[in-house]
C-alpha cells in the first residue's frame, strides 16, 4: 500500500518553502513530485525597470547566503558589456571574499545537515565556528550577510594591513576546526550510517541531469568554474578541485569540508600576494551600457551560478536571466530521492544545499500535452484576470 505524504512547504527540515509530494511504500520512497513557486519574487522582471547600479543591490538580495557570488556574477557581466578592466587588487579582494563566503556557507551546510540527522550537538558546533568567519566578513564589509562590497568596476571596501592579521588568526582556528570535523565525519559510526550509500547519484546521471557544484564533485565530476573558466584572481592562485567518488551524502559532506580547507589556503595565498593599487574604476551612476549580450559564470558555494545580461543601449537592461545553482540541482535531487528511506529524505534534500528562493522562476508545465512555457508577470496577470472573468463573469 502506498500513501502520499507532503514534505513542505512548511516543514521543520526546510528553511524555505518548497513542496515535495512523496509516495511512500511503508518507509520507502516510490515516487516524488516537486512543486516550486512559493517564493517567486519576480526579480528578473523588476530588473527591467531599474538601472545598472541599482541592480547590484538587487542581485545581492537574490540569495542571503551566496549574496557575494550573485553580485560578483552580475558585476562581471556588466563589466564585460562595458569593456571595463577591473584593477588587480579588486580581483584579489573579490576572490578573498568569495572564498570566505564559501567557508561560511559550508559550515552552515554542515550544521544543517547534522540537524537533519538529528545530531544537534554538531549543528551547534558548526554554527559556532561559522560565527568566526561571519565576524571577519563583518569586519571587512560592515555587514554580516549582504556585504555590499561588489560594485561595477571593482569593490567598495579595501582589506587593510590590520585586518590581514586578524583574518590569518581566525583562519588558523578554522583550519583546526575543519580538521576536527573531518575526523568526526569520517569516524563517527552514526554519521557514517546515516550518510554512506544514501542518496546515490551516479556520475553518468549527474552529467545527464546537469548537476553542479559540490553535488557534481561528490559524484566524481571535476566541474568547477574557478578552474574551468577562471574569473577574478583564480587564474593566478593555485588550488585543487576537490572531488570524491562516493556519489552519496557522505561524499558531499567530505567535498565541502575539504573545500573549506582549500578555501583557507586560497585566502592565505591571496592575502600574501595581493598587489597594491586602486580597488575600483569609477563609473557614472546613470550610465548607458552599449548594446550587446554577456554571460558571466561564477562558482557560488552551492555550484555554478550563471547570469545572462542583454542590453539595448539604454541605462536599463533589456533582459537579465539568472540561473542559480539550486535550480540546476533540483532535477538530480528528484533522482536521488527515489528509492531511499523516509528517514533519509531530510538528509538527502539538505545534501544538495538547496536555496529555494534563488531557484524560483515561473515555469508552467502542462503534463497532459507535455508542453511547457515560461510566463512573465504580465502573462500571469492576464491569465489570472481571464480566469476570474470566465468564472465569475466580471
Amino acid at each position, binding site marked *: 500500500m502506498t*500513501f*502520499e*505524504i*507532503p514534505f513542505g512547504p512548511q*516543514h*521543520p*527540515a526546510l528553511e524555505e518553502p518548497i513542496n515535495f509530494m512523496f509516495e*511512500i511504500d511503508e*518507509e520507502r520512497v516510490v515516487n516524488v513530485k516537486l512543486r516550486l513557486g512559493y517564493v517567486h519574487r519576480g526579480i528578473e522582471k523588476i530588473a527591467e525597470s531599474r538601472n545598472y547600479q541599482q541592480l547590484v543591490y538587487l542581485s545581492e538580495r537574490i540569495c542571503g547566503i551566496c549574496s557575494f557570488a550573485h553580485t560578483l556574477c552580475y558585476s562581471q557581466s556588466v563589466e564585460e558589456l562595458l569593456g571595463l578592466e577591473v584593477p588587480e587588487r579588486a580581483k584579489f579582494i573579490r576572490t578573498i571574499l568569495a572564498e570566505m563566503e564559501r567557508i561560511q556557507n559550508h559550515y552552515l551546510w554542515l550544521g544543517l545537515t*547534522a*540537524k*537533519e*540527522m*538529528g*545530531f*544537534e*550537538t*554538531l*549543528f*551547534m*558546533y558548526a554554527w*559556532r565556528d561559522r560565527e568566526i568567519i561571519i565576524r571577519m566578513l563583518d569586519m571587512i564589509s560592515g555587514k554580516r550577510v549582504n556585504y555590499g562590497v561588489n560594485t561595477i568596476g571593482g569593490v567598495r571596501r579595501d582589506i587593510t594591513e590590520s585586518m590581514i592579521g586578524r583574518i590569518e588568526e581566525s583562519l588558523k582556528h578554522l583550519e583546526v576546526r575543519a580538521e576536527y570535523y573531518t575526523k568526526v565525519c569520517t569516524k*563517527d559510526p*552514526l*554519521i557514517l*550510517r*546515516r550518510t554512506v550509500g544514501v542518496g546515490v547519484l551516479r556520475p553518468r546521471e549527474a552529467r545527464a541531469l546537469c548537476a553542479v557544484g559540490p553535488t557534481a564533485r561528490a559524484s566524481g565530476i571535476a566541474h568547477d568554474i574557478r578552474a574551468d573558466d577562471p574569473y577574478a584572481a583564480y587564474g593566478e592562485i593555485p588550488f585543487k578541485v576537490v572531488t570524491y567518488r562516493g556519489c552519496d551524502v557522505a561524499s558531499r559532506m567530505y567535498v565541502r569540508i575539504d573545500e573549506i580547507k582549500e578555501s583557507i589556503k586560497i585566502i592565505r595565498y591571496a592575502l600574501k600576494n595581493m598587489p597594491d593599487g586602486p580597488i575600483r574604476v569609477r563609473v557614472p551612476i546613470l550610465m548607458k551600457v552599449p548594446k550587446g549580450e554577456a554571460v558571466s559564470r561564477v562558482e557560488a558555494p552551492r555550484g555554478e551560478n550563471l547570469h545572462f545580461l542583454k542590453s539595448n543601449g539604454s541605462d536599463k537592461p533589456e533582459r537579465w536571466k539568472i540561473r542559480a545553482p539550486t535550480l540546476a540541482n533540483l532535477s538530480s535531487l528528484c533522482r536521488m530521492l527515489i528509492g531511499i*528511506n*523516509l*528517514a*533519509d*529524505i*531530510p538528509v538527502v534534500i539538505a545534501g544538495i544545499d538547496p536555496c529555494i528562493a534563488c531557484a524560483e522562476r515561473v515555469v508552467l508545465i502542462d503534463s497532459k500535452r507535455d508542453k511547457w512555457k515560461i510566463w512573465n508577470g504580465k502573462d500571469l496577470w492576464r491569465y489570472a484576470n481571464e480566469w476570474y472573468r470566465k468564472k465569475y463573469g466580471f
Partner: protein
Amino acid sequence: MVPEEIWILIETFLFPGFLFLFFLAFFTEWLDRKIVAKFQNRYGPLYVGPKGILQPIADFIKLLSKEDITPRMVDKIPFKLTPILLLTLAITPLFCIPILSSTALISFEGDLIAVMFIMSLTALLVFIGGWASTNRFSSIGSMRAALQLFAYEIPMNIVMIGPAITAGSLSISKIVDWQAHGVWNMFIQPIGFIVLIVCLMAHLQKVPFDIPEAESEIVSGWIVEFSGKKLALIRLAKNFEFVLASSLITSLFLGGPYGPLYISPIIFLAKFFLCVFILSNLRAAFARYRIDHLLTGAWKYLTPLALLQITLIKIWGI
C-alpha cells in the same frame, strides 16, 4: 506522637509522594536541558528563576493556557484519553520505587512485573495516540513507535529480570534490600546495566532513538496533533518517564537509597542525578538512528547481550 495515618498521608502527598515527584520531574527536565546545552555550547534555560530553574514549570503553565485544538477528523475518545492515561501510567510505577527507606510506598511481591507491564502500556499508548490523530505524520510516527517497541522491549525486560534473579525476589524493594547486604548489581551485571541504559533511551524516545518523533523527518511524529493542555500533559508524562527510568536504574542496579553507612533519600537523589547525567550525556553525543538500524541493532546485539547476562548470572550462581 503523630498517628500512623498522617505519616502515610505525608508520604503519599508530600514526600516522597506527588508533590516531591512533580518537582523532581520539572527539576529533571531543567537539569537535562542544562546539561545538553552545556555539551552543545549553549546556555540553556536562563531567565525564569535562578539559572532558569523554573523554566520547565513556566513552559508547562504556558502550554496549559494555550488553545486546545481537537481536529475534526481524529478519533475523539482515544485522542483525549491518551495524554491523561500517559501521565497516570508514568506516575503510578514511581510509587513502587523505594526512595525514603528500603520499602516503597507500594510494595508487593511482583511489583517489578507490574512496572514492566505499565512501561509497555505507555509505549502502546503512544501508538494509540498517534494512530487516533489520523495525521499522515503521526501515523508514520506511531508505526515507528510500535516498531521501536519490538526492538527494545524484549532486551529491556530480560535485563530487568537479572537483578530479580540475584535477589531471588520480584519486588523492587527486596532487590534494593538485597543490594544493601551484598554488592550493587551494576558490578556483578555490567552488561545488563549498559543494555538497560540503551533500552531506556529507546523507551524514552531520546536522541539517538527519537525515531517516532523525529522532528526533521516527520514533524515530531505521533505528537504532532496534540496541542495546549494535551501537549502539556504529554510533556509532563515524558518528564515522569524520565524520572522513572533514572530511578529504575538507581533501584535495580545502583542500590537505591542505601549508602555505604546509612540510608537516606539524599543518597538516592545523588545516584538518581548521576543516571540523569548519563542519559542526558548520551542524548548530546549522537545523531539519530534510522528505524531499520535500530531494529537490526537491537536484535543483533542487545537481545543476545541480555541473554548472555542472564546466562552468566546462572553460571556463576550469585
